[in-house]
């Protein structure tokens, strides 16, 4: 394995552990139920990371999502901000895992290619964070009762942000 592959692998495992700890530590009433699930998620990620299956490494997200569902079901006042932050952390973990798997066989990456990948991840996380925070702010100002309505609000926000990002993604030579 190349040095970059090692860095990505170790980074992915560390991020997975950090996400799991953050998820378990911030769980309000269901810590005993959540902990085994996040542990299973981290173990699955490590196993599939070692095996090198980029498709099955995504399966590790299911226990993590299960933990969110479980904790959300138990809690009377679930935190949206927490969910979106953990979601973003886990997304970065998954991206690091995919990069680690790809770099085992992909050879050398140029600096521009690395920068490009980082830029894409940062864009996704930023859009998701902004969208989540705007949704949180919107519901705090005018709480909506229907989840379907909340979903529609989220979908509308998503569309707006994607359109904004696409509009801002211009060719570099135009900018320079």
């Amino acid at each position: 394995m190349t040095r970059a592959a090692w860095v990505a692998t170790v980074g992915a495992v560390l991020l997975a552990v950090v996400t799991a700890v953050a998820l378990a530590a911030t769980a309000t009433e269901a810590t005993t139920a959540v902990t085994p699930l996040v542990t299973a998620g981290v173990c699955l990620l490590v196993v599939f990371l070692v095996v090198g299956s980029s498709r099955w490494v995504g399966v590790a997200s299911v226990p993590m999502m299960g933990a969110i569902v479980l904790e959300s079901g138990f809690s009377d006042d679930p935190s949206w901000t927490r969910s979106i932050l953990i979601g973003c952390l886990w997304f970065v973990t998954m991206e690091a895992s995919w990069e680690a798997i790809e770099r085992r066989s992909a050879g050398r990456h140029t600096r521009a290619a690395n920068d490009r990948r980082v830029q894409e991840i940062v864009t996704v996380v930023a859009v998701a964070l902004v969208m989540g925070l705007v949704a949180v702010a919107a519901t705090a100002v005018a709480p909506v009762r229907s989840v379907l309505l909340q979903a529609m609000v989220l979908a509308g926000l998503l569309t707006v942000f994607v359109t904004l990002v696409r509009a801002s993604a211009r060719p570099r030579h135009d900018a320079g």
Partner: protein
Amino acid sequence: MTRHATDRLTVAVALSLIGALIAVLAAMPEVALFAAPWMVLCALGMTQRHDDEIEVQVELTKERVLVGDTAELVVRLSSASTILVRLRPEPSRSFGPRSAAMHSEVVELVRGAPSASTEVRFDLPATVWGTHDVGRLAIEAVVPYGLFRVRGVVAQRLPVRVHPTPVQLQELLTPWMVRRVSGTHRSNESAQGIEYSDIREFAAGDSVRDINWRASARTGDIWVSQRHPDRASDVVLLVDSFVESGHDVRAVFGLVVESAVALANSHLSATDRVGLIEFGGVVRWVTPSTGRVQLQRLVDALLATGLYANAADKELPILPSRALPPRSFMVAFTPLLDQRFIDAVFTARARGHDVAVVECAPLGRSPDGPEGGGPEGDRPDAELLARRIWQAERAMVRDRMAEQGIAVAQWDGNEPIDVTLARLTRRRRRAVRVGRR
């Protein structure tokens, strides 16, 4: 170029759908927010406009390299879209085993960049001599956000000539006939030279520097020393490119090429003119000349030699005198398997050329070699008998050649070519004596 969905797309779509369904059906918006990054990824990745067209130009910095060197492959890419491209050179199998050096390279192409193209260089280690095609390139483009990838292959004919590393021989084959040009071969005639030949009585016109003072003092008359001059010669390599079924053609021809290159390199270093005649399915030649460029010409011609199965009754044609100069020294490289080539060797000798034969027969492949196919006890009688007849016939060919003053030495590739040439030199002295009788 074909477009495929990546695993990233499968996972992102699955997580987005699961998160959205759970959020809506179980009234848990937190789950949708957890899956929000994947939803954003799907939205950004799928709505990205993308053109799969990638322009690729492949070229080599050097068309000729030596075994052990690296062939530098330059790839220039340009794309109508911003895209990450993974390139992996796939040279022909004959180029040698895939090595770690033939890694893939991931580069970013920027849509409409002013620099027009991105340049990537690959160093391909050349391990096997020959003419190889290195223009094949596997391309995999990952569109932004990595949800789709486009795969394709660029197959451009880009031959690289990998020359065998020339071996410098310890001792050259000495031709019996030389040119009237200064060189490094001792001539049998007496003239201005270095090596002492004889003494004779002083005659008008002799140089004072040639007077042999010791002999003159002893006899009381004036004696002068005679010397052998050093001359250059014309060496013509006669290469057998007939295909004989039932033999490892590549192995045999490999020996032919290696020994021919070694001999050409050494004779060119000794200011001899060296030429080449390829005699097989086609007859081609390289006119004898001197210098390093001539070595490249000869090696190029050898590497371009095609092995043809040809059943036509061929004879050594009347070649122009510039291709086969009179009194030239011919060294034939042959496995002595094709009767037409054997006849050509006799023809050349009959035309007055000094001829020597290097019999290139790889060990274990030669029908009369020591490992020619297993212990004799395991073979049926008919096969053993056929083998003995074959050996007798080949021995007859060598004897006939020796009678004509043509020396033959076998080379199996295991011993240094110098040893074989030393043996050939010894046999040449004997064969020429026999041939002159």
